[in-house]
């Protein structure tokens, strides 16, 4: 009997584990959340971005993006694969190495473009 109970609760826990990510996925993350999130873009690890806390100093501040990237596609390309411009860059090729999804990169691009 005891065994059944614990296995029932195990099933419940498992079910909860599967449901949770679904729910998390259901709530769309904002561009800011994807850009700042440590397990996602984590762009703050290297870049100062207005509105973000504890920025790193490895890359240049991400400011005045519209002026510096009149063509938004160029900005997106930089995030998708920074090694095209600089093969030795420390910046991860987020799109090429599938560290982020295409949609996430779109959202980061849009968000950064407002800075």
């Amino acid at each position, binding site marked *: 009997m005891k065994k059944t109970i614990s296995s029932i609760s195990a099933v419940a826990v498992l079910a909860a584990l599967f449901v949770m990510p679904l729910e998390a996925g259901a709530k769309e993350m904002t561009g800011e959340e994807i850009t700042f999130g440590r397990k996602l873009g984590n762009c703050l690890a290297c870049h100062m971005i207005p509105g973000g806390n504890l920025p*790193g100093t*490895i890359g240049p501040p991400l400011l005045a993006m519209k002026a510096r990237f009149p063509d938004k596609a160029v900005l997106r390309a930089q995030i998708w694969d920074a090694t095209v411009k600089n*093969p030795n860059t420390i910046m*991860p090729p987020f799109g090429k190495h599938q560290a982020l999804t295409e949609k996430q990169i779109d959202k980061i691009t849009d968000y950064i473009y407002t800075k």
Partner: protein
Amino acid sequence: MKKLITAAVGLSFLVGVASADVASDQKAFINHFKTILPKVEFAEFSNGVYAVDEGSREQFEEILDGIPPYEGAVEKGGKEYLKFGLNKCASLADPAAARIKHPYFDEASQQVVTLESAIKKCYAKQTGKKLGSKKGKIARISAWISDQAVGKKINVIVKSAGAKAAYAKGKATFYAKRGQFNMSCADCHVYNAGKKARADILSPALGHTTHVPMYRAKWAGLGTLHRRYGGCYKNMRAKPLKAQTEAYRNLEFFHQAMSNGLEITDARYRK
């Protein structure tokens, strides 16, 4: 064409994988750090981030002035060294000499022998049991052995053809891009040393091995150099290798050689 060649040479700055000359590699290494961190004296590089960051330096010194959180563990390591009869192996009988001698290239096996691999081998011989490679007993014993060599200088010798090949492999590992993040050790600990990754200051690779095994507040304990390698492989989103595998031993061979001439220290504390 000439321009192309110089550009290629420029890119291989410090990378020069083909060369395996410690003295000239180290000279380039030291010159690089002199350029990017002109205020840091050579001897100070043994203090890692605390040589670079005045803000956290004070806290570091306070910890060292008190009873460092690893003191008891290192003492225990000394007792374990005797308890398990590690003084009976020729390789470890003189602990200070053992710290200085390792890592070295063993001609018979054509392999780099690290201090921890020697401890593991001796422990197995004396007790018939296996010892881990990352934390706990091995880190305590290794730290105690290293404590006996405080003030002596790191002096990795790379002479024979086999040693040079192992060193060159370790060097290539250090400079190779890897993982989902496509980063190299040098990206963080050479080119961007002293800069901040979020709130973490990146330590210069020069001096990285003077205080190993290190204590980390994050670990709440001691860990070996290869434990730290594993953590940094994760930083690059690469799959860590097993501690004491050949690739890590070769990496250590190169990595320690780059600190030749720096004093071994018992200031093991890191954030």
